[in-house]
């Protein structure tokens, strides 16, 4: 996907209200109540699963185990039926607080490292000449199709030899490696479209390629960087497979998704804990979604070529 198309997409969820008001009148002639009702039905159906977990996470253990979460709606404003005890419990005795912090330790560097590597590489691919340039670039793009499962067994052995299993550095590098082809591809498409003049005038003004990169390329590529950053951040935060294989289930290093999966295994019927645990694992992605909706959608579309 080229930078312009990612950029040029109509503003999707973020600014839709504006577009909708300008185009909807011509489009929805016989719009009527049928469309409204259907949209409402699908919308409700799509919200119920999350709402059920959300409400249950605030109900006392005894209530969750004996009655459906929808029974709270008989007296929705009776606040004595809600409690924070489940959150307190999962965060302390079920190690979810530690897991939450571990997820941050994993996710932030595992987002910044591939972006940095990719931005330098994309810049060099786009604006410098060197031997093997087109060959290397073809290899990078070709690696987009490789499912990460192809790497697991050899890497697991390599990590065993170098004592990298269960270390944060190990999982940063693994996520960086798996995210790099997409990152280089997207950033190359964007950076290579930057106008040529700005580079030439920078050179003539005496900027080195390094300062050109940090002072010009990085600030100008901000939309592409943000889209990929959000895609990679959510991908890593939500990942279970890579964390399970390279970090494992030791509470010192386990991330929230692993911790949640462990909780399902050990306390599969304790719904008051599972629902709270699920929400602990979801809170960061939901915040990212609410605050950065526009970039989130773009990043997601951009990520659709990830193998």
């Amino acid at each position, binding site marked *: 996907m080229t930078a312009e198309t990612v950029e040029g997409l109509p503003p999707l969820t973020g600014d839709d209200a504006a577009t909708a008001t300008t185009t*909807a009148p011509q489009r929805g*002639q016989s719009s009527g109540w049928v469309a409204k009702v259907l949209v409402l039905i699908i919308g409700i159906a799509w919200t119920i699963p999350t709402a059920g977990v959300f409400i249950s996470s605030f109900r006392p253990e005894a209530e969750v185990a004996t009655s*459906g979460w929808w029974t709270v709606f008989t007296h929705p404003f009776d606040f004595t039926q809600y409690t924070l005890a489940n959150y307190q419990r999962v965060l302390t005795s079920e190690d979810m607080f530690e897991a939450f912090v571990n997820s941050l330790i994993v996710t932030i560097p595992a987002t910044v490292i591939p972006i940095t*590597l990719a931005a330098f590489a994309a810049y*060099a691919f786009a604006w410098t000449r060197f031997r093997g340039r087109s060959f290397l670039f073809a290899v990078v793009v070709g690696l987009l199709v490789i499912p990460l499962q*192809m790497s*697991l067994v050899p890497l697991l052995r390599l990590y065993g030899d170098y004592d990298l299993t269960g270390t944060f550095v190990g999982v940063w590098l693994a996520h960086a490696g798996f995210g790099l082809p997409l990152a280089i*591809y997207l950033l190359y498409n964007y950076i290579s479209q930057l106008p040529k003049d700005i580079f030439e005038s920078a050179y003539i003004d005496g900027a*080195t390629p390094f300062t050109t990169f940090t002072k010009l390329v990085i600030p100008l590529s901000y939309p592409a960087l943000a889209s990929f950053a959000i895609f990679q951040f959510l991908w890593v935060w939500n990942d279970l497979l890579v964390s399970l294989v390279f970090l494992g289930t030791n509470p010192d290093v386990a991330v929230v998704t692993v911790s*949640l999966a462990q909780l399902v295994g050990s306390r599969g019927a304790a719904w008051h804990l599972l629902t709270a645990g699920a929400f602990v694992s979801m809170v960061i992605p939901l915040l990212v979604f609410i605050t950065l909706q526009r970039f989130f959608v773009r990043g997601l579309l951009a990520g659709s070529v990830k193998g």
Partner: protein
Amino acid sequence: MPEAVEAKLETNRRPPLSIVRDLTVAVGVIVLIWLGLRVLRSETALDALGPFGGKLVQALIGIVLGVVGIWALFVVANSLVELLPARATTVIRPYVFVGPAVVVLSIFLLAPAVGTIIQSFTEVPEGEGPFYNYVQAFTDPALQIALRNNAIWLILAPAGALLIGLAFAGLVDRVKRESLAKSFIFIPLCISGAGVAVIWRFIYEWRPEGQPQIGILNAIVTSFGGEPVPWLQEIPTNTLALIVAFVWIQTGFAMVILSAAIKGVPVELMEAARIDGAGEFQTFLRIVLPSIRGSVITVFTVTAIAVLKVFDIVYVTTNGNFETDVIANRMFNEMFRFRNFGFATALAVILLVAVIPIMVVNVRNLRRQGIGA
């Protein structure tokens, strides 16, 4: 860039005095990163700070180390290259920029992928031929089930996400508060597979008849006088139940892409069809749908690839029990639980072979729309 510009640029060099400083900084950065990694790996270094404080300090060290460290390495490498004679700097610098990415890609994707292909043929029991793992893969009854399930997923999940996403995208175009309505469909996309698994396990929760049903689906079934259904144990309902959870996630993706495409269909075209007497549904079927064909293919291929690699939903709900296994989950268990590496690599190769044709369709389609490299 033009050679002349490059030459001009190299005259803008730092004074030689800075050589000592640059080298000192380089050594300092490397020592600091090494120390940071030692502290991060150590299990006892931060114990004095207590469990809570220790964790937060560890987080701070880890995040700063990962984020600043990678930049520091580039700055250091660049300053070292700039110490070289001007001509050498020009030749070598691109490799300093591209090199780290290429090295990481080689270690983490290229070499392992080649290794996986080789190992799938060489890691066989004594006296067996090179195709042993593949013969096993296609004759093992447990794997037959996994392959069959992947096929069922492949038929139902992309179609389901596509149809509901398309319907919603078409309908939402004509209601007020469009963006709000879309958000609700979209939210599941940002939830992890493990989270989705918990959410849907709760929906499918089963209690024996007579007990209060706390899962909403069985509550509905019993309120209509039916018997509670163990959705995740009963075959083949359970595989369908997992597919529904997957469709719940993926519909948002389909909806967003298709909605953007539908907005691109010229209004005049739709007006013309209406003037010619076509109804809303006819217009949609005859005018809108053909115009957004490319986006439909994108949604289909992307979802199909996600389906082939589906792991976490299955792992956290049933772990493949009750005949719900899929290839990616099987591969994880062969590798991680049974240490059956030869077989696991063969499964990875099968996954690759299944993904490639869909990827080819995807890339061709993106190209036809003028998108992609």
